[in-house]
């Protein structure tokens, strides 16, 4: 990393003014000039593709609310090493806040020189502070700030993969029961008894949302049950890509249940991408068709309560699963069973019927253990540091957990 530091270089004010194209009028008295900024520092912005340098300086002595003449802003100029002219200002920064900024309009590897002036009332420009000798940005190939994040990621993803492989290898993974999953069978069964249809809504997000994909897995399972019980399954979607994918999933489920003949493509249809247009149509259908069971599995927004309350008014069994925290209260209040956040993803593994999918749940648990350990260690150290009147060693340990392991200070701060 290159760094250079230079004193401010005084240049005759008159020649300076003409250089940046500010013409003082003959009639007005020349403005009083503020004191210049000092200590210009320019260095490469770390962990980037070399597209920027960080510029910082010490504020002008007049940069204070009671300063006279008041400094309004700083102007920054740049030239390539070896050029004579400074040209137009490239950046400006208001006075009184920060005395740093970054220049992002540079070519990687090129050497630049910088000049900063304080600007007062009537564009009175101070003497400049300069950084001469050249600074260049550097392209880094690995973002060292993220090293710890990478380690955590490898650990947790590694655990998921390890447990999936272990389950494939025949290891029996014990996973607790998830309340609400039995309700899936029960609901489909009841629809068959009543001779009414089942409604499945796969959220209102597009196919590239992970919740939509988790919902599709649940849909596959519901469809298999519906095929076995010979119940009609209806899937309105608000995205055409979800419609095409849901058709494949449901068709495959009917096939695996041995009832390919019962599959009807027209029961999986697109309405409109517009959120409330979609809801208006679905609630209308709910009241008319009087579904016996309603499933809401995926990403939901404000429509959650409209759907759940309408479903309730027609007396349907309702099972919901979503990872949208803001909608969980309504599903919890209005549905018979709700899969809360992480449980929803767990359910999609649970219902897939493939034991090795359960490995992912164990991997998630490992992640929670890692999180809880870091949390307890960090809180413990922070508390001790506070009790021991900021004992340096303990405070450093707490800071390392917070700012390096969980922050962006890298392995060796």
């Amino acid at each position, binding site marked *: 990393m290159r760094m250079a530091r230079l004193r401010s270089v005084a240049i005759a004010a008159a020649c300076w003014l003409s250089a940046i194209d500010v013409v003082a009028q003959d009639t007005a008295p020349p403005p009083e000039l503020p004191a210049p900024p000092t200590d210009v520092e320019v260095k490469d912005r770390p962990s980037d593709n070399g597209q920027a340098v960080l510029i910082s300086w010490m504020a002008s002595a007049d940069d204070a609310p009671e300063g006279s003449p008041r400094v309004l802003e700083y102007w920054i100029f740049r030239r390539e090493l070896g050029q004579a002219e400074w040209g137009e200002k490239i950046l400006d920064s208001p006075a009184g806040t920060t005395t740093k900024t970054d220049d992002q309009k540079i070519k990687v590897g090129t050497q630049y020189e910088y000049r900063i002036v304080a600007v007062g009332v009537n564009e009175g420009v101070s003497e400049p502070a300069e950084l001469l000798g050249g600074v260049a940005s550097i392209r880094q190939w690995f973002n060292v700030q993220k090293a710890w994040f990478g380690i955590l990621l490898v650990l947790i993803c590694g655990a998921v993969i390890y447990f999936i492989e272990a389950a494939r290898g025949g290891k029996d993974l014990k996973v*607790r029961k998830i309340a609400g999953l039995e309700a899936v069978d029960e609901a489909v069964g009841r629809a068959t008894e009543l001779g009414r249809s089942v409604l499945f809504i796969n959220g209102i997000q597009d196919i590239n949302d992970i919740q939509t994909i988790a919902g599709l897995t649940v849909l596959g399972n519901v469809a298999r049950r519906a095929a076995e019980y010979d119940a009609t399954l209806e899937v309105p979607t608000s995205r055409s890509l979800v419609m095409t994918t849901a058709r494949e999933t449901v068709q495959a489920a009917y096939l695996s249940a041995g009832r390919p003949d019962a599959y009807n493509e027209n029961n999986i249809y697109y*309405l409109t991408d517009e959120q409330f247009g979609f809801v208006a149509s679905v609630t209308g259908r709910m*009241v008319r068709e009087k579904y016996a069971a309603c499933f809401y599995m995926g990403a939901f927004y404000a429509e959650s309560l409209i759907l759940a309350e309408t479903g309730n008014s027609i007396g349907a069994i309702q099972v919901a699963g979503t990872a949208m925290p803001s909608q*969980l*209260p*309504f599903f919890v209040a209005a549905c018979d069973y709700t899969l809360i956040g992480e449980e929803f993803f767990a359910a999609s593994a649970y219902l897939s019927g493939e034991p090795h999918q359960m490995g992912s749940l164990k991997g998630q648990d490992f992640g929670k253990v890692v999180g809880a350990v870091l949390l307890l260690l960090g809180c413990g150290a922070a*508390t001790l540091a506070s009790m021991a009147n900021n004992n340096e060693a303990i405070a450093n340990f707490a800071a390392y957990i917070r700012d390096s392991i969980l922050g962006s200070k890298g392995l060796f701060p």
Partner: protein
Amino acid sequence: MNNRANAAWAIIFVIAAIFLGWRIATGNFGRIYVERQQVTVHAEDGSVAASWETHTKVPPRDHLGEGVSLSIPRTIGLWAGAILTLCIFSFLYGDNPFYKTAESIVVGASAAYLMVIGFWTQIIPNLIGNIVPDWTRTWATPGLDPEAKADYVYLLPLLLSIMLLWRLAPVGGWISRWPLAFFIGATAGFRLIGFMEADFVAQIRATIIPIWVRNPAGGVDIWASIGALTMIVGVISCLIYFFFSLEHKGLVGKTARLGIWFLMITFGAGFGYTVMGRIALLSQRLEFLFYEWLWLDSPTADAVSGAASLIMPGLGA
């Protein structure tokens, strides 16, 4: 629903109808006035190159102003909007043909509307505009950066789009799985990093606080300390509730139960906050009906607000 209830509803609807009728018979309402403005574009030599009229909505009280006139299309629109609003609200009483009509209009119009938006904001500027920028600049997006060069990388999303639409063809629908796989893979990678960084690591980091909280004077702030402890206990117990490897029995069961309590308080808070938002939405809709359509924001409204201070003394009106 019994007969008495039906009679009660009938009375309510009749009162509403009489009120509307009275409004129509006596009041001025439900009109939109616009102000005309002439837009004139001058060519370089100063001559008029083009000119057209634009209209801006003005409040009804300014309807006598210079250049202000009644806008027939917007007045029709206002009535259509108001009637459709009532059609949707009618669903609260029960399904009916008015609601079904409104529902059909919103499904058809919104599906097409989003298609149009997609065409003018995505397909033209981002797809076509990147592949043949010179051509798009000649008609649709003249403001596009004049230095923009054709970016043939965008032939790839074009190809993917064609593969996707292949599904409409009678054979080879499976080809559409390729673009889908591309995007599902990309977003899975994208989301994995994004969520782990902002919602896992950053959230644990934010929870690391001392349980021993000092106040500015250097002493121990007992209530803040209790708050910090409660918060950390809450996070840990909720995490244990979500733990799948252990049955909820014994100590684990008890902690998980505590976790559920925290979750329930969270949901209660969410519910309370949301009530607030939903009522604001309804207020806004009713303001549309009352003020913009029925023009109830007239001197009569001031007379009533005097009465309000009788109903709620001391609260101000």
